[in-house]
């Protein structure tokens, strides 16, 4: 069995993502967060399990739904919240918002909302590590939709060709906005199979099981670090809320309430809480204490973000070119 420290760290990382995302959803109607937000509630196990498999010195990049990746990699919460509120103290100085999180100290090199676009850039950071002989792994996060983009295929090809130290993490949540897999990819063909066809070592796993994800991801990171080349991991999971925004949208007709409920029963956080308690790894009170601590941390971050100044207008024209 996994050691208690790791298990509590996984719980904490998942609960932290859930706490932050739920609070964003609560506060979003205030209309003070004036940028699109893509919440990852329901996908926390995939994010915590992969993020915790990395060292701080490792690199991570992500896409539009990046809050969980940023937090699991150790990104600064205050910087993230201030960025979403468009403040000068934000991790991108208010230039980026929720879709452009960054924290260089944590090795989170950036997220962008052009689906698939950070995949080749991540291959480039891995290429750089290999060329410099660094003992560093890059992990790149994307969804099932990105696997339809040309850059996904081109990137796997190049990463395999040069045996680059990169782990590709695909969270398959079944939908690209409202479009289900069935209208985007042929039946009977797996995403993992595409990666394997490119000559990349491939793993699939339950994206709602934090320990399973952590075990898979740790092996993948280890293989990449030891120079065995890239690894592709496909994790099945489910996005609870709407593609973009704070609401639930099961009523509008692109997916069924029954499907949602089925996934809801597999809540990665609730399942893990129950498991830790059943195993005697933690008491309900211990976990509640962690949750309370995280809620307080989030309130601090929101207060920090709300009370921070907006960036000065002249900063809009700054940093177009590096001096």
């Amino acid at each position, binding site marked *: 069995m996994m050691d208690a420290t790791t298990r509590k760290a996984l719980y904490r990382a998942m609960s932290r993502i859930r706490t932050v995302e739920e609070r964003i959803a609560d506060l979003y109607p205030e209309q003070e967060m004036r940028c699109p937000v893509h919440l990852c509630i329901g996908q926390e196990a995939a994010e915590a399990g992969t993020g915790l498999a990395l060292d701080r010195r490792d*690199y991570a990049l992500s896409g539009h739904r990046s809050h969980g990746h940023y937090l699991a990699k150790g990104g600064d919460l205050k910087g993230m919240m201030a960025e979403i509120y468009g403040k000068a103290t934000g991790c*991108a*100085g*208010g*230039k*980026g918002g929720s879709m*452009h999180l*960054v924290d*260089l100290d944590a090795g989170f*090199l*950036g997220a*962008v909302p*052009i689906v698939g*676009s*950070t*995949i*080749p*850039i*991540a*291959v*480039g*950071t*891995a*290429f*750089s*590590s290999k*060329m*410099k002989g660094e003992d560093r792994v890059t992990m790149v996060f994307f969804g099932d939709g990105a696997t339809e983009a*040309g*850059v996904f295929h*081109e*990137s796997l*090809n*190049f990463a395999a*060709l040069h045996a680059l130290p990169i782990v590709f993490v695909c969270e398959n949540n079944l939908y690209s906005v409202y479009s289900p897999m069935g209208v985007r990819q042929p039946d009977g063909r797996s995403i993992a199979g595409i990666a394997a066809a490119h000559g990349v070592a491939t793993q699939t796993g339950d994206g709602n099981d934090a320990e399973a994800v952590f075990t898979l991801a740790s092996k993948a990171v280890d293989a990449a670090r030891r120079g065995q080349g890239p690894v592709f991991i496909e994790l099945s999971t489910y996005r609870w809320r709407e593609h973009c925004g704070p609401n639930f949208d099961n009523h509008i007709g692109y997916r069924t309430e029954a499907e949602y409920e089925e996934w809801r029963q597999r809540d990665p956080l609730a399942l893990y809480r129950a498991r830790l308690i059943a195993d005697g790894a933690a008491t309900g009170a211990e976990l509640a204490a962690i949750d309370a601590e995280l809620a307080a941390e989030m309130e601090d971050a929101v207060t920090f973000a709300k009370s921070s100044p907006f960036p000065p207008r002249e*900063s809009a024209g*700054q*940093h*177009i*070119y*590096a*001096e």
Partner: protein
Amino acid sequence: MTRQIKFFEALREGLDQCMGADASVYVMGLGVPDPGGIFGSTKGLVEKYGASRVLDMPLAENTMTGVAIGSALTGLRPVLTHQRVDFAILSMEQLVNQAAKWHYMFDGRMRVPLVVRMIIGRGWGQGPQHSQSLQAMFAQVPGLKVVMPTTAYDAKGLLIAAIEDDNPVVMLEHRWLYGIADDVPEEAYRVPLGKAKIMREGGDVTIVGLSYMSLESLRAADILKGYGISAEVIDLRSLRPLDEATILASLRKTGRLVVTDTAHGPFGATSEIMALAAEKAFGALKAAPSRVCLPDHPAPTSPALADDFYPRAGHIAAAVLRQLGREPDAALFAPPAGRRLDQPDSSFQGPF
């Protein structure tokens, strides 16, 4: 020490010196280490620096641009090379959305020291998809720098300056310049990005050109001398940043402007220069500016169709004469002696 070397040799020497001086510089592109070596401009580099720094690549322009960006974000200085501009536009997403904006959208926290070389083809039936001049598309994007060397001297100096710059720089190289020699110092030197060059001083008209059309502009100035007209020829060298000061100073002196480009006219570099003249030197203008560009249709392949596609010195001289109220004579449009119009000189015998 200065000696005469050709444009492609100057590029190769610049690359060689940058790679020798800085281990973070690497060169990548389809065919970069092959026996042809990008028309000679990368020849011999793989033998000197090895396959890890002089790389061929898969036919995946967009992804390889992303790879170059990722490597640039983490301390390397890639020089990505495309044998045609037309191929490079497959990488527009990474160039426009990512390379151009990474520094800005993360508030200056990261830099993208990337050079993307692209070659403009011409002649011997290059046709609709091997000869486009799309510099304006790149120059429209804040965050990119765009340079177009005309001489071998500037090819080396701009390339070294571009590699040392911490921003993404698109360098467009006209294929017809590759075989032209110029005085080039042996040592490394830099030509600043964003500085135009006055190639010829004159007082009656300002001709602004870029890339191969700057050479045609010089020839036009020679023709105009025969008419008693003194033309000042400015070689832009950089589209972005644009050297407004040099253009405006010349315009205030001459009061007349002819702009010529290797591209189509509408929404292009010529439009931008004319807008600059209208906005900032309107009072100095003695006549409406004119431009000499490609006809507004794709490049045809047959020599029978392509011969009329590319304007020459005579067309530029004619534009000047018309501004001065003089009717150009037909001899100005006669094809040059000693070569066919689909080759830069008789030594160029195709196929590309």
